[in-house]
């Protein structure tokens, strides 16, 4: 899985670099020998430029992967999450910590660090970290107060499944690869701007025209690459979500908990939406669709009703007792369950 992806990425980068190299050799040489009628590709130059472009993209990707690092806690903090510690007095957080402990026993993995993303009303969660030893799990405030015990256990088990299946490591790699292509686009824009500036400054600067063309090519290819990378990333993510649902149920042996959690996402107004600005970058890491479109090529998660139906084949959105509840009812019920009628 991971290997095929890396291979695809390398092919894509090689293709982009090859095109750029060829273009560069055409434009730069044409400028130097303007009297020659036909355009000629100089192989040495084309290959040289291609190699440099490839090296830059790979270097940036590796740098990004290294800086994202294997430490899940850092990723959690970059999403604005706060760590929950053992001494918490909040009953919701205490229960959450207990559930994390239980799931780490069920998965046979070390206990990941626990985080809560405050102020987020949507029901969502994420897992991060390059290895099970450095993993972190986070849930939104909405998930903490809107889900009951077995539902939250279903969600945490799903995240634990991502850690067990090493999806978190794959995610970091995918993020790094896409970032390498974003870098190409950014450099292209800088080239474009400087070319435009030098042209505006002195009229007879003949070096500007080819620079402009190369800049445009970098921007176009860079954005096409990012587009392709995003489609790849989303497709992988959608597949891994089904797997994590299945593995999670294997941990809890209770498909109803996870199914009901997904139903509550469908029932509440905020759904699974995450407001945090960094969520865009990490949207494939979440439990359910955090931002962007909910169907199509760029959605990182399968449609909600399909995930529910995989767990509960008799699910009917119109008459389901949980799917048709409203926010107030859900909040009241979970609160009542945990802190009692007078709490």
């Amino acid at each position, binding site marked *: 899985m991971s290997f095929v992806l890396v291979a695809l990425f390398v092919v894509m980068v090689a293709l982009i670099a090859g095109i750029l190299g060829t273009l560069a050799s055409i434009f730069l040489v044409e400028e130097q020998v303007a009297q020659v009628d036909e355009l000629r590709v100089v192989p040495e130059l084309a290959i040289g430029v291609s190699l440099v472009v490839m090296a830059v993209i790979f270097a940036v990707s590796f740098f990004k992967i290294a800086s994202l690092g294997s430490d899940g806690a850092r990723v959690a903090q970059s999403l604005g999450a706060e760590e929950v510690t053992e001494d918490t007095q909040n*009953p919701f957080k*205490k*229960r959450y910590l*207990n*559930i994390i*402990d*239980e*799931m780490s*026993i*069920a998965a*046979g993995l070390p206990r990941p660090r626990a985080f809560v993303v405050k102020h987020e009303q949507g029901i969502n969660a994420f897992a991060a970290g390059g290895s099970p030893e450095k993993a972190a799990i986070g849930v939104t405030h909405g998930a903490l107060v809107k889900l009951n*015990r077995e539902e939250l*256990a279903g969600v945490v088990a799903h995240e634990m499944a991502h850690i067990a299946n090493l999806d978190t490591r794959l995610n970091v790699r995918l993020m790094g690869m896409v970032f390498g292509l974003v870098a190409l686009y950014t450099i292209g824009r800088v080239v474009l701007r400087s070319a435009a500036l030098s042209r505006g400054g002195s009229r007879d600067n003949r070096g500007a025209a080819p620079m402009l063309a190369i800049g445009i090519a970098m921007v176009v290819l860079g954005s096409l690459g990012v587009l392709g990378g995003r489609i790849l990333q989303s497709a992988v993510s959608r597949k891994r979500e089904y797997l994590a649902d299945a593995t999670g149920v294997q*941990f809890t*042996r209770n498909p109803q908990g996870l199914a009901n959690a997904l139903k509550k996402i469908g029932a509440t107004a905020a759904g699974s939406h995450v407001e945090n600005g960094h969520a865009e970058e990490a949207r494939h890491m979440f439990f359910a669709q955090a931002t962007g479109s909910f169907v199509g090529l760029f959605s990182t998660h399968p449609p909600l009703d399909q995930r529910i139906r995989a767990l509960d084949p008799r699910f009917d959105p119109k008459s389901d007792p949980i799917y048709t509840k409203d926010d107030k009812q859900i909040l009241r019920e979970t609160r009542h369950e*945990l*802190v*009692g*009628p*007078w*709490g």
Partner: protein
Amino acid sequence: MELIIVLLVIVALVVFVVVLYNNLVRLRNAYINAFAQVDVQLKRRHDLIPQLVETVKGYMKHERETLEAVIQARNQAEQIRQAVGNAVGDPKAMAQLGQAEGALGGMLGRLFALSEAYPDLKASANFMQFQEELTSTENRVAYARQAYNDAGMSYNNAVQSVPSNFVASTFGFREVGMLEFEDREAIQQAPKVSFS
């Protein structure tokens, strides 16, 4: 020439036995490790119960017998847990432990069923905290037991199947017992509250 062939066959056989033996050792360590986790969680369960009884005593004045029975079941289970430490996997010890824990689970189920009749107790923050702690502990015990039984089954498969069963019987690898809690039905049953 023949001597070399004979030697090669002997070496191949020895390597084969070593591989099978090492696999058995690996599987045995896996279930022993899994049982250590079960032990930790059972200890947690047993430590929690006296506190729970202390908390509910003030409210459930008419249930002294039940509370005493809970404590007794807990003490017996704790005794067996400590004894089993030296006989991990022994089918008899596992059955004994399973029975004691099952009985304790049944008593706890009855205690919580009775608590339905004491609204003051049910509304107290302390009791709700205990309910969460106990739920969590029961889940931990269940998951740890699952892991132990899975590891035990893999080990038993190796001990029973050809060809590793020959190595197992030669070097004294015995089958392990699964950990099943009897009385599970008693916990699952809905509480019967009668007002007559």
